[in-house]
């Protein structure tokens, strides 16, 4: 069994630094396995979040050798032999301890989004939706809320002052999923502009690059949303929609 060197951030809001751990790694191990081994044998109090260990819950986000990733889906054989592997907490959110950060920002943003309000059902009390009309939204629903996209988003990462009026990529696709829902009746145009701050996104696609679910956040979520915004604010388009009865209710 090869011994690997893990350079793990230890510390809290008052400060800290990287500490080296030498651990035996076995075939097939992922970074999270090695972190668990450190916990069990060398540092019982090393803090990290995890649940499913299979890329489904989005708990174990970290910056591994500087790259935002899920620890449970990062194989150790990705790294060169003898190379020290650094594991740090995701940088955008305030540190709690070691690899754990305070991600409450995301839960607050989630709460602010105007929820779904459905059209009346079919006479039998149920709804009909065609698969092709929900394919795109199902892509957004793959989101495991690992918040890696939020972590790399320049607006959130570098502009504390803008965070109040900015939801971030995770919630742009959440809103897009609601807007594109075939049965939804809510117009979120103003919300998306004023409170979610879609205009601040300058489409660098960093969010899309780090998404472990390979959701096309920018191309399928953000860009069409920006286009819808433009349409929705266009007086001619609004008039046509009103005449045709296609308008959604404003929030």
């Amino acid at each position, binding site marked *: 069994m090869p011994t690997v060197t893990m350079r793990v951030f230890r510390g809290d809001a008052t400060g800290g630094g990287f500490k080296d751990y030498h651990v035996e790694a076995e075939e*097939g191990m992922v970074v999270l396995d090695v972190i668990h081994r450190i916990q069990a044998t060398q540092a019982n109090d090393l803090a990290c979040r*995890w649940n499913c260990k299979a890329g489904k819950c989005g708990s174990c986000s970290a910056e591994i050798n500087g790259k935002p990733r899920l620890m449970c889906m990062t194989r150790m054989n990705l790294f060169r032999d003898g190379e020290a592997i650094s594991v740090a907490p995701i940088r955008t959110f305030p540190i709690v301890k070691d690899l754990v950060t305070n991600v409450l920002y995301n839960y607050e943003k989630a709460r602010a989004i105007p929820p779904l309000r459905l059209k009346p059902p079919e006479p039998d009390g149920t709804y009909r939706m065609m698969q092709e009309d929900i394919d795109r939204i*199902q892509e957004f629903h793959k989101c495991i809320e690992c918040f890696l996209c939020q972590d790399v988003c320049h607006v959130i990462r570098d502009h504390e002052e803008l965070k109040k009026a900015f939801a971030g990529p995770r919630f742009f696709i959440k809103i897009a999923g609601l807007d594109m829902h075939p049965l939804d009746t809510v117009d979120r145009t103003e919300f998306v502009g004023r409170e979610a701050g879609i205009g601040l996104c300058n489409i660098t696609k960093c969010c899309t690059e780090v998404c472990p679910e390979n959701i096309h956040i920018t191309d399928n979520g953000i860009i069409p949303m920006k286009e819808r915004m433009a349409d929705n604010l266009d007086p001619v388009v609004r008039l046509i929609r009103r005449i045709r009865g296609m308008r959604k209710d404003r929030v």
Partner: protein
Amino acid sequence: MANADYETHEHDVLVIGAGGAGLRAAIEAAAQGVSVGLVCKSLLGKAHTVMAEGGIAAALGNVWPEDNWQVHFRDTMRGGKMLNNWRMAQLHAQEAPERVLELERWGALFDRTKDGRILQRDFGGHRYARLAHVGDRTGLEMIRTLQYHGIHQGIDVYMECKIERLLKDGERVSGAFGYWRETGKFVAFKAKAVVLATGGIGKAWKITSNSWEYTGDGHSLALWAGADLIDMEFVQFHPTGMVWPPSVRGILVTEGVRGDGGTLKNKDGARFMFNYIPEFFKGETADDEAEADRWYEDKRNNRRTPDLLPRDEVARAINTEVKAGRGSPHGGVFLDICTRRPADYIKKRLPSMYHQFKELADVDITKEPMEVGPTCHYVMGGVRVDADSTAATMPGLFAAGEVAGGMHGANRLGGNSLSDLLVFGRRAGLSAALYAKNRGGQLTLDAGQVEAVAHDLIAPFNRAHGENPYALQAELQETMQSLVGIIRTESELREALGKIERLKARAERVGVGGNRQYNPGWHTALDLRSLLTVAECCAAAALERKESRGGHTRDDHPYTDDQWAKVNVVQRLQNGVLQLRREPLPEMPAELRALFQERK
């Protein structure tokens, strides 16, 4: 370190656990206009439900109009080897369709039929394609839907908060006490009613599909407070967990693989499940490969493939094949969908499985078979509840989901868990809210109880050079894996109980270093208590039941026994000692019994 200060919150209803059952309970209680607190051990939306893959069983009849609640009820009872609480199984089958439609109204987007309704897939033990699903990530859709609906219902959510003990006012439950994982500070909840929705106990085994959270917290909270547990001998080993590489051993491979056409093979390429069809299921199971393959398309004229026998049967069969030397290179068997379905279909229907094998095992499941073997997955046993109200055997306490016992009898059918969470989560929230409204008097905290828990919580810090909690947990997992696994026998169960007793004594001496702030060593030390409690309950009940049935197989009592078909093993603490009784099953009314006289 002796800082026993705590903050206090008060709610009419306190829900402990925020997976499917807890969220659904909280939503329902809030709808009754009472004040609701929801406690999660992890962050919201990360609970075990998020990992559920295959689907939600509900007789919607969208794919097979012949399906109805009676057929679902019958499948569920037969899957549970008739040990289920019949009333729970009935309510479950009757209410599951409405609960699924309700999820859709709250924003869930299930895969669709050609005419735009909710598509349903085949699963083990279900006569018709019955599982509403979203590819193989149904649990994610369900928890996200409940989460995003729930956050607009005025529920107070307490994240990363662990409840250590229930508080009582005489014989009634009056709240709970625990700690914030982030700061290690203590927190007390005063509550008129408490709903347990804490999930299962699978972390007591070494090879498990369960996460760190599944340490039997709710089972233990109930038992310690004086409530009854039933059926704790029945543990489900899911037949298909990953077996290679070692670090992923136990991670779940959805039954949907077989539901969508996959088949189990041994190293000789034989579809061995045809050799393991029990008498009980002969009438409804295909006995040759041609009929089994036709069944996917034509259920009226063909019987179900034995690959989709209930999980207990399939897990035992795999166990036998491996022991007989017919297993795969890494001690499992092969699960083949690549030769049976086109690559596009596999990627569309089973995207998570494709991703999981590709990333973690370097296996492309559209080109190669998977290697799979049994993994501890679910506990059928749990808190003894009243079927209609989910009330436990002590006033003010309710339980729903995996922590509750009775619904699934000796073995749970795949897909019946997510529906169970919704049906009984809702019922628990409703009953708890009604109970809270009718409960008079002021809630008070008993200082003596609070101090006792606080003292216990801090204790591991006073033994900085005590035993390593992780090492103790690993020893327990090893013990349960080797002695209280799929196949059990009296001598091994006695040995297990002896070891658990010694581990309990050692657990009193575990020590942790560091401070109270987000300290997983400390959390593991504390969770050991509940883990040891449920391990003991399971081993003791397994020793008591001298027959084989569902998720309980005794090598020394290999057959089902009619006498045992009529009783539950009930456990309770008396003066700190685990007591065990056999109690008769509730009797099924004649009109439901008649459902079992028809076609087998």
